[in-house]
């Protein structure tokens, strides 16, 4: 086999890894959309907020330091401690649960039975609020996130796959971070599926997604379920925030990864968990392979920026419900 083939294979595998990260973000959307019919515009900002909080806690930053300093004329910035990564992650998860409770208490509860567009607008407002709040709380400079995930090319894989190709093939180059991210995303999805299939709360979650009234009639508290759903979406945002944040630093652009989740959702369907996973993988592999095979040689490159959206557009034309979404039936 030629080196070109192996290089193609490497691009494919890297595409899969990126795709897993896309899936992760998309999954947060799907969960909330399924259970409450809300398209949560703030999902990306939640990832940013989670990452900011994680870095802040880990480095012992004083929250609202700028605000405190400018009001009281003090000079506090750091508590002077450094938390272990695992503890900081657990604390951040706790913060995401608190956030979920606040969202339910101060937003969702007041908007019950409102049209979807109102709820959507509320999440847009929430996104901007959280973005500003995150900045105010932790500062707006770009931060480095390091929770001990290995980064850079994985030499073990490179060395042990080198024999596959000929003289000019040096083995697959895979970023360790991508591998870790893929493994974690996989575990997260697996545990989510198990949780929703085999526990009573999981069952209640699916019940609420299907029919609110019936759910109430069997004794399910919608408020509790909403808190659970938003907490899970918060955990997913946290994992996504850790992975993307470790990769490219914690900064505002982290919240834009949500935009990449949109084509994933159009492909996979807004209501399907497997759809989010497969959709993410297709987009991830698709954009890398398109760039490799067509983009770079013929179109001058940089196709990764728009390929996903074009694919989504094609899907909207030919299969608007996505690959796995509920079929859209209009009864006349």
């Amino acid at each position: 086999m030629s080196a070109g083939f192996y290089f193609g294979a490497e691009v494919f595998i890297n595409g899969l890894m990126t795709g897993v990260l896309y899936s992760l973000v998309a999954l947060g959307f799907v969960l909330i959309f399924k259970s409450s019919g809300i398209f949560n515009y703030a999902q990306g900002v939640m990832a940013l907020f989670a990452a900011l909080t994680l870095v802040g806690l880990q480095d012992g930053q004083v929250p609202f330091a700028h605000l405190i300093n400018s009001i009281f004329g003090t000079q506090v910035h750091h508590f002077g401690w450094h938390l272990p990564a695992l503890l900081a992650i657990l604390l951040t998860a706790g913060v995401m649960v608190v956030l979920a409770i606040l969202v339910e208490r101060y937003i969702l509860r007041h908007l019950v039975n409102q049209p979807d567009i109102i709820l959507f607008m509320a999440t847009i407002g929430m996104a901007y609020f959280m973005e500003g709040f995150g900045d105010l709380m932790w500062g707006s400079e770009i931060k480095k996130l390091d929770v001990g995930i290995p980064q850079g090319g994985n030499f073990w894989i490179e060395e042990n796959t080198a024999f596959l190709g000929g003289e000019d093939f040096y083995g697959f180059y895979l970023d360790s971070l991508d591998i870790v991210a893929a493994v974690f995303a996989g575990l997260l999805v697996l545990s989510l599926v198990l949780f929703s299939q085999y526990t009573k709360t999981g069952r209640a979650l699916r019940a609420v997604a299907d029919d609110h009234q019936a759910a109430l009639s069997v004794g399910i508290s919608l408020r509790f379920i909403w808190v659970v759903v938003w907490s899970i979406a918060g955990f997913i945002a946290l994992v996504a925030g850790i992975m993307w944040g470790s990769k490219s630093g914690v900064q505002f652009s982290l919240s834009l990864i949500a935009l990449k989740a949109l084509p994933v959702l159009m492909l996979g369907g807004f209501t399907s968990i497997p759809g989010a996973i497969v959709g993410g993988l297709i987009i991830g592999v698709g954009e890398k392979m398109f760039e490799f095979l067509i983009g770079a040689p013929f179109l001058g490159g940089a196709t990764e920026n728009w390929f996903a959206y074009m694919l989504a557009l094609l899907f909207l034309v030919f299969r608007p419900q996505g690959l796995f979404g509920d079929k859209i039936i209009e009864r006349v």
Partner: protein
Amino acid sequence: MSTAETYQTPDGRTIGAQMMEMKNITLRFGGVKAITDISFDILEGEIRAIIGPNGAGKSSMLNVMNGFYHPQEGEVWFHGKKRGPMKPHQIAKQGIARTFQNIALFSGMSTLDNIMTGRLTHMNAGILKQALWWGPAEKEETENREVVEKVIDFLEIQTIRKTPVGRLPYGLQKRVELGRALAAEPKLLLLDEPMAGMNVEEKEDMSRFILDVNDEFGTTIALIEHDMGVVMDIADRVVVMDYGKKIGDGTPDDVRNNQDVIDAYLGVAHD
């Protein structure tokens, strides 16, 4: 109007003390009165029917009973206590289960899972224990699963246990919905037109299940029905509603001979 003493039905079941009492219920939607000053009671162990023409306010009454609607006036008494303002899911926990006129199942879930949701009020394991599939949570799943299997056997729906309910025919969906309500082992079972849209054979099956539930488990049942014939066969006592008002209350025979009821159903000449 309400009779609180115990009595014996012709087929030998004992009807006990008062379970639920609706006192002077009035329900308005804006300026529209859906229910006007209605009072009646439900006794332990009986099959109580609410009948009436379309738009009489029967479903509204059921929705008041399970807490979907809160009446502007009147009181609901349950087991001798006045019920405060409660959410439907809290009322479900008190032992009131219901079915819906337009089937409200969790269509993406299997028959088994749908009926399992009926057991939620009996399951208490915390969310962390569930997430970790910890001892108590697992034990609880198994125990409740056994109850559900009994319900499935009772309703003779073993063959569709794993089928997503969205794919089932209408009659079977109605039966699964009944199963979900039964799984809660309710004290009071509310059925909103359990036989609506069914063919004769399905109606007979459903009537048999309702009678069996009442007989075997001693469950008190309040049901709304359109079909007079069915109601007269299975109900112990009947409330008749028309335009949000109560126009009759008593045994099927009483009601059958009530002139107001006859007028409401057959129409009356206005001159």
